[in-house]
């Protein structure tokens, strides 16, 4: 009789646990504010007329992970668009405003090529967010002139159920800062961009 009661109790608990598993298909969104990244504006800008091309792919860029029926999403598009706009103004001397008349000689198109996040085994292990972005400068005819793929990384402890969100926000801020600083450096040190007319 006691054994039967134990069996019923454990069976009920197992069914309850399994039901949580199958019913818990949630989407967790880690919203990111516009992180404050200051790009140093040097006096030695690149003297070519350029227009920044913002695509829907860039606006919708995000990190996404599916795990045990749940979806974890971190939107990045807003930050990428904001900082791409600032970057172009910091690097190039002539930047055409969106919708302005006439087509500048060159078009700069940023594209996210990967967003990956790795986690250690526990909350105390290191996690790393990597963002890869391709910058393509093409003539107004579409012919590519210069391409560079830049990577930004943000690392830190993964965090637990209470601190995980804040930790992810810190990693995102670090990765974005790293990405745009590296992008600026790649453009300003490019011999080809310096020699373009």
């Amino acid at each position, binding site marked *: 009789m006691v054994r039967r009661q134990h069996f019923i109790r454990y069976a009920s608990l197992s069914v309850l646990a399994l039901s949580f598993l199958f019913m818990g298909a949630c989407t967790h969104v880690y919203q990111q504010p516009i992180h404050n990244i200051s790009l140093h504006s040097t006096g030695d800008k690149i003297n070519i007329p350029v227009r920044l091309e913002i695509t829907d792919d860039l606006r919708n860029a995000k990190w996404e992970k599916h795990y045990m029926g749940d979806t974890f999403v971190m939107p990045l598009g807003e930050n990428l668009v904001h900082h791409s706009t600032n970057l172009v103004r910091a690097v190039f001397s002539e930047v055409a405003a969106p919708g302005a008349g006439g087509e500048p000689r060159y078009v700069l198109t940023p594209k996210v090529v*990967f967003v990956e*996040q790795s986690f250690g085994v526990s909350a105390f292990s290191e996690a790393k967010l990597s963002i890869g972005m391709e910058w393509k400068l093409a003539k107004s005819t579409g012919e590519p002139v210069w391409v560079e793929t830049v990577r930004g990384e943000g690392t830190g402890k993964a965090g637990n159920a209470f601190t995980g969100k804040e930790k992810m926000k810190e990693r995102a801020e670090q990765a974005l800062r790293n990405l745009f600083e590296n992008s600026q450096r790649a453009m300003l040190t490019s011999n*080809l961009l310096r020699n373009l007319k």
Partner: protein
Amino acid sequence: MEGRKARVFVLAVCMATLGITSCSTMTLKQYPGPSPQELQSSVSDDGISAIAYPLKSEEEFKDYFGVNLTQKGILAVHLTVANNKPNVSYLIRAESIRLGQQDVISRTTNDPSMRATKAANAIGITGGVLGSPVLIAVAAQQLSNSTIIKENFESKEFRSKTIDTGQKASGFVYFKSEDASKIGSVDVCFDVIDSINNKSFTYCTPMGSRR
């Protein structure tokens, strides 16, 4: 009393497993590319030198990728391209990298060159698998490994780049293994664009083996 012993035993196993697995987060190494001497040994008239090494040994796969790619149908070739020509910049488009001299446009729909995401999906890198409560720690280890392997795949891929004089570009290119059955006798080819002088050409280098 018996139930209590069983619970204590399960708890002890969980703690031990968690303790063991939490000490063993996977770490993968950076691939040491060719030496400057190796790169200088084969410079073309256009100033380009390139070296391609396919990964073959179990030890290499374990060190650099954490998984045996050949067993999963993927050939990973490390490619380094250097520009030795003064006052010229060359654009290397990653999409143009292929095996043999086959023209990119005439490639079949079975694209032999796979992007890192496709390669990672092809070898079945997914999230951890939940088993019984005792195996949750093992599942955490599996999930951690899968995220590290996938991030490593993407980070190591050869990406499009414009290389100025004295610079180089390097990374891994992933091919479907069945398309490279003759490892060692196939060239790795890619398109080179000199946008300032309006020149473009194809450069090929034979797949070598590390000494």
